[in-house]
């Protein structure tokens, strides 16, 4: 993998550096990016997070010295296979729509006896300090590989979450007037050389949503949908999105439902 990556980076650097023969250079740059992406897909460090997540799922932890093995992700206690492709969903025991991470938090509190504050001390990993949510999300999401996204809006609270998420997607604010839609409301656009998915379009939404969680090469971390939204809002110049908040869940319902029918393929690897 490393050799292919280096070769691709060299092509990328050469393509970007040349001022002559612009059209040729443009084409080389795009080819370089393609090669870089292919090289990344060869091998995926997300496996490490997945393995740690499997251990965390089975380990007896917390004041109740209990595992998460009886956690109900929507398909019955302990059923992990295919669960992520149907999240977020309404959970009667909490009377709330929840995405994966919110549900994991719920189980850490209800089954393992952690306080919410303890459980959310490290929601996103950073170098030496690792996040249990990222590992558990990698483990759970990987058990939906090959499943078709199938997020229901049958329950009134699911329907309401979708409609609220839609409004939030188009909500402009901050010093730059940005909404999610500013970058993700039109097809075939880029920022610099980065392609932007149109998250209101089924094909683009499917491709984008089914690729998260993902291992981010640039950060050396496995990142989840909660992280993705958090970092989008940072770039939108908004304040910080609260982890497992109703806003984060409503937006996830909007994005996940738009991706219905897409074949789930995460965890993937990204630049």
């Amino acid at each position, binding site marked *: 993998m490393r050799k292919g990556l280096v070769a691709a980076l060299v092509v990328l650097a050469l*393509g970007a550096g040349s001022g002559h023969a612009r059209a040729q250079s443009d084409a080389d740059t795009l080819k370089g990016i393609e090669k870089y992406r292919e090289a990344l897909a060869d091998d995926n460090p997300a496996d490490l997070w997945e393995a740690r997540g499997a251990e965390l799922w089975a380990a007896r932890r917390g004041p109740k010295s209990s595992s998460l093995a009886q956690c109900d992700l929507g398909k019955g206690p302990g059923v992990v296979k295919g669960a992520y492709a149907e999240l977020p969903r309404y959970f009667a025991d909490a009377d709330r729509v929840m995405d994966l991470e919110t549900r994991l938090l719920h189980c850490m509190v209800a089954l393992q006896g952690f306080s919410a504050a303890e459980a959310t001390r490290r929601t996103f990993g950073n170098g030496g300090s690792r996040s249990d949510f990222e590992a558990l999300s990698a483990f759970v999401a990987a058990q939906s590989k090959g499943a078709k996204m199938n997020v229901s809006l049958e329950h009134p609270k699911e329907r309401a979450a979708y409609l*609220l998420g839609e409004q939030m997607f188009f909500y*402009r*604010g901050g010093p730059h*007037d940005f909404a999610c839609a500013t970058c993700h409301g039109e097809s075939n656009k880029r920022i*610099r050389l980065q392609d932007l998915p149109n998250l209101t379009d089924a094909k683009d939404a499917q491709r984008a949503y089914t690729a998260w969680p993902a291992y981010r090469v640039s950060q050396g971390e496995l990142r989840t949908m909660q992280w993705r939204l958090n970092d989008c809002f940072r770039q939108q110049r*908004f304040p910080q999105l*609260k982890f497992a908040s109703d806003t984060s869940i409503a937006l996830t319902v909007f994005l996940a439902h738009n991706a219905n029918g897409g074949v789930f393929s995460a965890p993937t690897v990204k630049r």
Partner: protein
Amino acid sequence: MFSRKSFLALAVLLAGCAAMSAGDYRDRAAQMMKGDFSERGQAGLGRLDQDETQALCSRRPADGALDRDAAARIEKLNLDGVRYPAAGRLLGDWREGEKIAQSGVGKQFSDNPKAPSGGNCYACHQLSPEELSFGTIGPSLRSFAKTRGGGEAMQRYVYAKIYNPEAFTACSSMPRFGRNGILTEDQIRHLTALLLDPQSPVNR
């Protein structure tokens, strides 16, 4: 047995629950967002409060196109607020402009609030032909002055457009760099030069 009055009240209430309008969802979404963010660094919760332009421009495709009166109102409101440099030239130094166009920092909670912000123009626009890493959300600005001229009127237009794009195109995706205090007057003059100076790589 319900009285006629309470029966009516109940019917109205039920109808309200059954059919929340788009406007109701918009209000609820805004309300929900205000509780679901926390202040961090320079990004305070006030950033979630919309001004009239932002509120009118937060439309879903299902809401249809903005009507003409509202668009005219947004443009007038924003044009009235454009402040030109008190004295001196509208054209600064295109070399400084190029640096500002390349820089994407500023106003994020992860940014140093004391450092100057960039314009991040290349994120969305093609400008100098040497820079191949440009985005496509905005139109290409390559050879800008060659195709549109660079006289006094054009200089005033470009300065004002960067200062506040909503003055000319209601609900533009481009930030209101001057009006919202992202870029200083001098920075906007440098960017104006990047677009209009005949020596700028944009026009070579």
